[in-house]
């Protein structure tokens, strides 16, 4: 304390005062690095096993012939699903679906084999749970593929029986095959992509909330924001000094999570490391300014935190990672643009995964810088007003 009094007002004094405040609050220290890293570990664990395998499905085999058993075997052999239950009626299969025990039911009706042999084109039906859309559509795709393979095999046999050679019969079954490939980010990395997007979104909450807490606390304190301004000397130095400890902590968390992702978990990094570091820093700053502005607009600490929670909490839906931005309504499109994380994730995708040239990334980079400036200006303006209007009031 004695040494602090001798320090001249300025960046260092504001910074030391803030560090001292953080040091007195173990809860705040916990949310600076250990808590976000813990959440990252939990999220990484959720997605750690990669794409789901052996998702349970049920079969209702009412045919019980060589063909129907072959169908069941083919379906079970796909890595994504496993036949977990054999039901005798469709009602029983439906029950398993509703109970959440299986994601799909394959119905092979009676006389399927006989009808195939006599050319009567029987129908095999796959019912899948599309309420659980992610696993449901994975199951539908792989089981549908396996059933298609069985049908193709029968078709080839029929053609050969009509006198075609095996080679041309095989080509004729799938006249227009669709060869899908990932231009970027092969589909197996879907899980990594999701994790890499969720982490910054969670971090945006931490960054915004810590900045909000810092300013709201000073504002509610006995000496008010006037004291903070006295420590910093100028507006700019006050804001910089107060926020610098958090900037440092969260940039370490952000880069630390990336180090785990690209190092330990072996995700691919294709772009420019320097650029990655730059927009990472800009993202932290923009999120801090958002939190600071919210704290100075809100009336008290709880409202400030609630405001940051309302803005950053539901952000993930707006980023377009799960449901694409091109299908959003106007309100969501505008709201998404006001969130730093939207642009950060776009820059990340462009740089890390697509290795896009800088010119492609410039609009998103300008957005992110613009948001940092805009929120920063609001924060500075309000700080000036609050600090001046009642310098010593509570």
């Amino acid at each position: 304390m004695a040494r602090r009094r001798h320090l001249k007002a300025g960046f260092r004094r504001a910074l030391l005062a803030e560090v001292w405040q953080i040091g007195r609050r173990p809860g705040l220290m916990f949310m600076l690095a250990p808590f976000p890293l813990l959440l990252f570990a939990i999220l990484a664990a959720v997605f750690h096993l990669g794409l789901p395998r052996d998702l349970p499905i049920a079969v209702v085999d009412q045919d019980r012939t060589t063909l129907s058993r072959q169908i069941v075997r083919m379906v079970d052999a796909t890595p994504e699903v496993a036949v977990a239950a054999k039901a005798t009626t469709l009602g029983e299969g439906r029950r398993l679906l509703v109970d959440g025990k299986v994601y799909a039911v394959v119905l092979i009706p009676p006389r399927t084999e006989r009808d195939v042999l006599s050319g009567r084109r029987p129908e095999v039906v796959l019912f899948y749970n599309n309420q659980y859309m992610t696993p449901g559509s994975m199951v539908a795709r792989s089981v549908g593929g396996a059933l298609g393979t069985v049908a193709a095999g029968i078709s080839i046999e029929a053609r050969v029986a009509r006198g075609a050679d095996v080679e041309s019969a095989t080509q004729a079954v799938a006249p227009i095959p669709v060869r899908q490939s990932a231009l970027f980010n092969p589909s197996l990395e879907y899980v990594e992509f999701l994790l890499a997007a969720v982490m910054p979104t969670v971090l945006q909450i931490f960054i915004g909330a810590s900045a909000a807490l810092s300013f709201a606390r000073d504002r509610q304190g006995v000496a008010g924001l006037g004291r903070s301004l006295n420590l910093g000397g100028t507006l700019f130095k006050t804001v910089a000094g107060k926020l610098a400890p958090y900037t440092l902590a969260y940039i370490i968390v952000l880069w630390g999570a990336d180090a785990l992702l690209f190092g330990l978990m072996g995700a691919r990094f294709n772009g420019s490391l320097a650029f990655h570091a730059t927009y990472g820093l800009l993202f932290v700053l923009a999120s801090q300014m958002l939190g600071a502005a919210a704290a100075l607009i809100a009336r008290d600490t709880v409202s400030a935190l609630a405001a940051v929670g309302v803005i950053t909490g539901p952000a993930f839906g707006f980023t377009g990672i799960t449901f694409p931005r091109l299908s959003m309504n106007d309100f969501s499109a505008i709201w998404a643009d006001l969130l730093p994380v939207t642009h950060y994730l776009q820059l990340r995708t462009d740089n890390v995964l697509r290795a896009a040239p800088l010119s492609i990334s410039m609009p998103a980079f300008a957005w992110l810088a613009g948001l940092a400036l805009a929120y920063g200006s609001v924060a500075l303006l309000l700080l000036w007003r609050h600090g001046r209007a009642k310098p010593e009031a509570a």
Partner: protein
Amino acid sequence: MIAAFFREIVAALAAIWADKGARSTMLGATLFFSVFFPQPYLAEVVRDMPVAMIDQDGSTLSRELIRRIDASDAVAVTRYAPDMPAARDMFLKREVYGIVVVPPHFERDLLAGRSAPIAAFSDGGYFLLNSVMSSALTNAARSLGAEVQIGRLTATGVDASAAMAVVEPLIVTIVPLFNPTGGYASFVLPAVFVLILQQTLLMGIGNLKAGRRPDGALATFADAIVYVGLYALWAGVVLVLLPWAYNLPRIGDVAVMYAVTLPFLAAVTAMGFAVARLIPTKEGVIFFLVVLGMPLFFLSGVSWPAEAMPAPLHALALAIPSTTAVPALVRVNQMGADLRSVEGAIFTQLALCLAYSLLAVLAGRLRRLAPDARFGSHSV
């Protein structure tokens, strides 16, 4: 006794109304989030996803294929590119989200009965866009391919039904259940609404109780009754009224829904008291709950299957009421599950309610033993 209890009930209600933080979380935030959160998803499905086409064949059949791709609801052919670098440039600028290549000799090979593959490129990270494009292409390619095949067979003198039996000897029908249109809002919102109930209730209790000396048993019980009662009303709004307003599929029995909802709200309330007594400040409680929202959503197993999570993690997550309540309520409301089907979830909620009540009592005892703690320092 009954009069005293009634007075406590009135006091609990008055406390919610008097505390600005509690009023805005327990009355305002629930409604606000239920309107705000669904916004990005209201379109439900992707329509006219822009795709670039590289037609290297330029034939009648390649144009027919492109016409069929464009005719699908989900995909729109918006650009034609001369080559891959040009298409890739459009992709990077996000002018298109997929690229389709029809190679040279497409028509010649198709008519000659040879395999005539087409190629599609997209970004593997965007799950929804990928599956949308994939099904649009597969449908177009399959229908055109089958027509050409049948045409070839009938040209050799085979009658139409026999040709069909050769081309498609086994019909594979795929039926999506419960969310037939594959709507994204229909998928996400029923789960999110349950989570909103939990998080705002916890925040409200945090606002009212964090950093305060624990009340007596009767007052605490009256508080709990009021919170569960209030949120039972909210559950009706959020789980019945809003799905109707947003046109989400809902086929469940409201009585079964409440058979799950009431134990769930009791468990959340007990957890709220425990958290409020363990985390000493309001700010701490609110912050803790805000950051936990998204991880809890992923842990509930609706968006990411529980089978694909490490078992110890999922077991640990069972300690949070939403982990079992979200899937149970989705199964009741959206899939029509009956009471027997959700028994397990109900018992889990009751067990959690008991466990958190004990924890809250214990935390309260500890509080009383430590008089130096800064009680009330953050009261408004």
